[in-house]
Each structure stands twice: as C-alpha cells, then as structure tokens.
C-alpha cells in the first residue's frame, strides 16, 4: 500500500517544517491522493475498556441528561481519561457533561467537587475553592472535597490551609490516604524526614491498599527522596511506581526531571521518545536531546515553539512553568523566562515553580526575584537539595 512518506513515516519532520502555520493557519494544505493515508492516530490499538465505558455512559446519559449521578460518573471518567492521555479535550468534554449545573450555585455536592477539579485545571483556583466550600457546607463529611481542597491549597502554597484540610481526612478515609495527603504538606514545610519515614513504614504495613493508593504514596515518596537528595532511594521508588501501573504522564515527567538532574539524558530520550503529544513530556524530551546533542532537538524545539505560540493565540496562561523552562533552557531567552516564571509563581508555588523562578533569576541576575525564592524557602522551611545547590553555586548575584 502506497503512503506518502512525509505524513506517516516522518510525522515530526513534517510537523516541524510546517510549524509556521500553527500560528497563522495559512500553511500548505493539500489534497491527499491515497484513501489509505493515515492522517491522525487517535490511539494505539483497539478501543480500551475505559473508552468503551465512556461510550456506554454517554449513550445512557443522552437518554437522561439531567441525571446528576450519571453525569458525575461520566465526567469523572472523562477527567481520568484526560489525566491518562494528557489531553485537555477530555476535560472540556467533562465540562460539557456538567453543563446543566455549570453556572448554578446550588449544584449537587458530587458535581461541585468535579466542577472544582475542572476549574483548577485551567488555573481558576479561587472559583474552584469556592465550589469546594459550597460542597463542604452541604456535606462536611465529603472526603473527596477535603482532599481536593488540600491539594489545591498545596499547589498555591497555602500550607496552613492545606494542613487544616487534611485533618478531617483522618476520620473520613483510610489511613494510607490521610497520611499520604498530610505527608505531602509536611514534606514541604520542614518535616520532610519525618513524613518520609512514617509514610514508608505505613506503606509497608498496608499491603491491602489498592494500586492507585500505592502509586500515589510511592510517587510522593520518590519526590520527597529527590528533594532530600536520597538519589538511589528515589530511583527505587520511581521504579516501584512504574511497576504498579500504566505509563502515567505525571510520573514520567517527574522521573524524567530526576534523570535530567542526574545527567542521564540518553535514558530520558529512551523513556520519552514516543511521548511527543503532551507538551510537558515533549519539553523534557527536547531538554534531554539538547543535553545529549541529539539532532532531533531542533525539530522538537520548533514544535514546542509552535504549540506555545498557539496557546498564546488563544490567550492561555496555563503552561507558564513549562514555557519558562522552554525559554530559559532551550531558547536561552533569560528575561522572557524570568517574566513567565514570575507570572507563574504568582499563581502556583510548587517546588518546580520555585526552581524555574530561581534558575531564571540567577540567569538574569535579578536579586529581587531571587529574594522571593529564598524568602519562600525560609518562611516555609522548604527542604530541596536542588534549590540549595542552585543557591550555593549561583547564589552570589
């Protein structure tokens, strides 16, 4: 069967060459000559169980679109699908499923929690927290709402609030869940060692816990180990997490960062060579390729540039952390990187957000921006060997 090679065999060369049109939509469109030409691959292989379930739920929901339980169930599946595939389209679809309750103040509790989850994904943290408050006002024993609240507050750097949201979890959920949630906050507020030990011990005592719970706990342990500089233990936890489940984009990203810091770009290339759809993984792949002087770096940088430009065109500011990394490490545009990192830090304050802010501040020589990071570390007693190393090596501006 004849297939023009430009499309199927070299999709990336093709995309890179056509990168200009992504922003302008005025590229070289064409009429294919062969009906068998594959234009788009939606997934690899046959339909999986999750997709079949989503399809079935869709059909059921169409019969009764006002059924909030059915809608919640479908939205939840779509959110999970978005997480597995890194495709935000599924989040949008979940939002459309919740359309009958999207703007109402008196939505059912389950819907409010899902609405919060979708809203925070586009960085609408304040309305997301408001939804959770409404949910908890109706049902103070809703563990899901408390857990989601704790997680959002941690992302925005409100550790006191996050800690408070973890308290009810002790009586509402399993020990592993409540301890994992609390350890996450503790590990960022000067109690990393204790949290690491207690969670490790608890995990060993919880063989009955589900795979999802274990993946969550093990991934967190890997991240704490990284911040504590326990490299070999971190590596073990990452491998345990991979052994527990499918390829999870979040885990892949965290592991790739770990390997990049260990100066193992070849391993990252091997790990991510097929992960070009998700921007965050493509970014890590390009970083690795640049570090390893791999000729593919140029193509991937061009694709990333086109995607960030396309995001800018629609007015998105969701990827500023990644965009700052892209500008600093792949384009060498320090000032632009610092501007993005500062804007991002005003919204998100995870260790990765501090890291890119510090790296850009040091690259530019901006003492005020650097002071923001040191002050945050000092205030919250954040333990992170990578941040410490950066401050030691490039500390004097």
């Amino acid at each position, binding site marked *: 069967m004849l297939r023009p090679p430009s499309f199927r065999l070299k999709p990336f060369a093709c995309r890179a060459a056509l990168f200009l049109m992504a922003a302008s939509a005025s590229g070289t469109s064409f009429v294919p000559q062969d009906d068998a030409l594959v234009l788009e691959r939606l997934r690899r292989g046959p339909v999986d169980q999750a997709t079949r379930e989503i399809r079935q739920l869709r059909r059921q929901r169409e019969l009764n679109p006002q059924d909030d339980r059915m809608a919640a169930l479908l939205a939840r599946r779509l959110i999970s699908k978005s997480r597995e595939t890194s495709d935000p389209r599924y989040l949008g679809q979940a939002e459309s499923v919740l359309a009958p309750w999207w703007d109402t103040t008196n939505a059912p509790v389950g819907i409010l929690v899902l609405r919060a989850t979708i809203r925070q994904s586009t960085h609408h943290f304040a309305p997301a927290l408001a939804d959770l408050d409404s949910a908890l006002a109706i049902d103070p024993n809703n563990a*899901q709402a408390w857990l989601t609240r704790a997680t959002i507050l941690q992302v925005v750097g409100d550790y006191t609030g996050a800690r408070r949201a973890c308290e009810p979890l002790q009586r509402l959920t399993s020990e592993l869940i409540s301890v994992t949630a609390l350890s996450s906050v503790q590990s960022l507020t000067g109690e990393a060692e204790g949290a690491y030990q207690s969670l490790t011990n608890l995990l060993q005592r919880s063989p009955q816990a589900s795979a999802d719970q274990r993946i969550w706990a093990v991934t967190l342990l890997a991240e704490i180990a990284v911040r504590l500089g326990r490299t070999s233990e971190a590596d073990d936890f990452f491998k345990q997490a991979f052994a527990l489940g499918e390829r999870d984009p979040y885990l892949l990203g965290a592991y790739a960062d770990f390997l990049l810091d260990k100066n193992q770009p070849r391993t990252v290339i091997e790990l991510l060579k097929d992960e070009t759809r998700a921007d965050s993984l493509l970014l890590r792949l390009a970083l690795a390729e640049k570090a390893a002087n791999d000729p593919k770096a140029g193509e991937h940088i061009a694709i990333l540039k086109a995607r960030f430009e396309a995001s800018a065109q629609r007015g998105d500011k969701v990827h500023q952390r990644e965009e700052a990394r892209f500008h600093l490490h792949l384009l060498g545009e320090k000032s632009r990187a610092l501007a993005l990192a500062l804007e991002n830090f005003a919204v998100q304050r995870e260790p990765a957000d501090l890291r890119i802010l510090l790296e850009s501040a040091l690259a530019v020589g901006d003492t005020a921006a650097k002071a923001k990071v040191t002050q945050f570390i000092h205030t919250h007693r954040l333990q992170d060997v990578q941040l410490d190393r950066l401050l030691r090596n490039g500390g004097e501006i």
Partner: protein
Amino acid sequence: MKQSCPLQRRPFGLVLFLVLALCIAALSAHAHKPSDSYLTLEIGSTNLTGRWDIALRDLEDAIGLDANDDGDITWGELRAKHSALAAYAQSRLAITVNDQPASFRLDRHEVDNHSDGSYAVLRFTCAIPATTTKLNVRYNALFDRDPQHRGLLRLNVAGTTRTAIFSPDKPRQEFALLESGGGNSLAAFVKDGVWHIWIGFDHILFLMALLLPGVLQWNKGRWVPVATVREALVNVLKIVTAFTLAHSITLSLAALKVVSLPSRLVEASIAASVIFAALNNVWPVLHRRVWMIAFAFGLIHGFGFANVLGDLDLHGRVLALGLFGFNLGVELGQMAIVLVFIPIAFALRRSWGYRSLTVKFGSLLVSAIAGVWMFERLLNFKVLPF
C-alpha cells in the same frame, strides 16, 4: 428485581476518589494543547474567501470519522464524511454582511498538519457587496462538546489583519470595515505620503532646486530679483502645480499597474532629474519655463512614489483610498516646504548671498550630491548616509 446500579452508588469510592486528587497535580501541568480551530477570512472587493482548519480529533468527537474504529483516521474515512463535515460547518458558522446573511459555498476539502496534529481544511467563498461596511461572524462549532474549545479568527482586510477569539461566552464578533477602518487607513495613507516627502531627500532637493530661482528671473546672462510678490507666487504656483499634476498621473498609472518601470531605473532617473534641475540654475537652459522641467521630471518622481505605495500591497477598493490619501500626504508635505521656503527666499532675493552663493553654489552642491546618488542607484552601491 429493581436495578440498584452499583456503578452509581460508588462514585465516591476510593479508586475514583484518588484519581481526582492526583489529577490536581497532573492535569494543569501536563495538559497538551487544548482544542482550537483556525478560521481565516479574507475580504476582497466583491467576495470573501475563507479557510477553516478544524482538528480531526475534534471532528471525530463531533461527527465521527473513524468509521472502522481502529484508532486511525485515514483520508478515505475523512473523505467519506465530507458532506457531513460541510453540513456541520454550515450549521456552525454564520456570516452576516451589512446585516444580511451571506451564504458561503464550500469550494474544496483539504488537510493540513499543525503542531498538535492533523486538521481538515475547508475552503469557501461567499459573495459580498462591494460596499461592505459591516461584517458579523457567529461561530458555534464544538462548544457543545467542549466548552474549552476556541475559534481563532484572523480577518484580513486591505493588507491589515485583525484577530479575535470565539468562545462560548463570546460566540459573536462584529467588525466595522469601512467607516472607522476606512477613516483610519485614510489618515494612515496621508501620513505615509507626508512622511515619504519628509524623508525623501531627493524629492525635497528637486523641489528646492526648482524653487530657488522662483523669486528671480534670468536677464542678460544673470539672475535678477523679481519685482513683486505676485510674480514670485505665479512662478512658484506654476512649478508646484506642474510637479503635482505630473507625479499624480504616473503615481496613479503605476499604482493601477497600467505602467510599470524597474525601480532602480526610476530611482536613478530621479537623481538625474535633481542634477538637471540644479545645473539649470547655474547654466540655465530652460529659464522661462521651469514648470516644464517640473512637469517632465515630475512624471519620473511619480513612479518613485508608486514604489512606496506598492510596498503597502493594496488592492480592491482600498487602492483608491490609498492612492488618494498618499497623494494628499505628498502634496501636504510639499506645501509645507513651499510655505517655509517662499517667504525666506523672497526676503533674501536681492542679496548677493542669495543670488550667487545660494542659487549658484547651492545648486552645484545639490547636483554633486545627486550625482553620487545616481551612481549609487545605478550600481547598487552605498556612499552617502542619506
């Protein structure tokens, strides 16, 4: 037995529960590009041409493309859905021109590759009146499936591009095409014309060379002052009118693409015209009819102006506007020079300094500069900084 539906009773069970919590960390940071479509509209003189790029992933969700459900969308599968796609496009995009609905005709189906995957490309045209003043676009694609979808519009009118974003909150966009846009661009063209005179030293020097003897007359082998203001004004008026008339003619002919000359030749001839005009002041050949020089060489200068206007890439009805505005700007710039020059020249016309030093030595200097220009332009080589 009544269905108790265990699925529905478990939404807050632990498995799903955890996934949501993990999503917080993963969703925002790990998303790839959300759903966008790219709509480009080009307003011509009597029709509107459009190009609409919609992601195949989105179309799969909206109208279903993967007929055999193998995960791959082939050209054959897309082609089989072309009429469904056309119907979808027609139902989700409404264009109104001057408050009248305009129906668009789908000309061609193509595909294209964007940074995040393949897109179906719809090319369409739609007849519009020549006096389109208001364009209204209502975009309603995919919002029902994915409220985070955005339609990104680029509207090209007369060499300028406007952009807009369609969202569920803002599915309608209105564009005023002539009133405000036309006004703005007229002002812009006038400004361009003034600016071109201002930075066009060759035009200024040519005009100066012609005007220098405007307050004098050639009498028995030498320049003598004119007696009255009236005489001076008549001279100057003749020169300026002839120059204006001539360059307006060639500017229009060139802009309408009736006549076209290579710009290097035009630029070199303009330099030659400056030399001729300047030397004519020292050794007059045409001292009574300076306006004839102004007219003859004005024709050349018109082609020079046209090159500037050509760079702006105008067509359709905006061309007339541009031509008018630019010409007006050139005249205004020229007028400003004349108004400053005449009173000074008239006041100084009796002095030796003016008649000999300024007119003769000045003209020699001007012709020397113009000589260098001519060589620069002929040989494509730069000596002077202006």
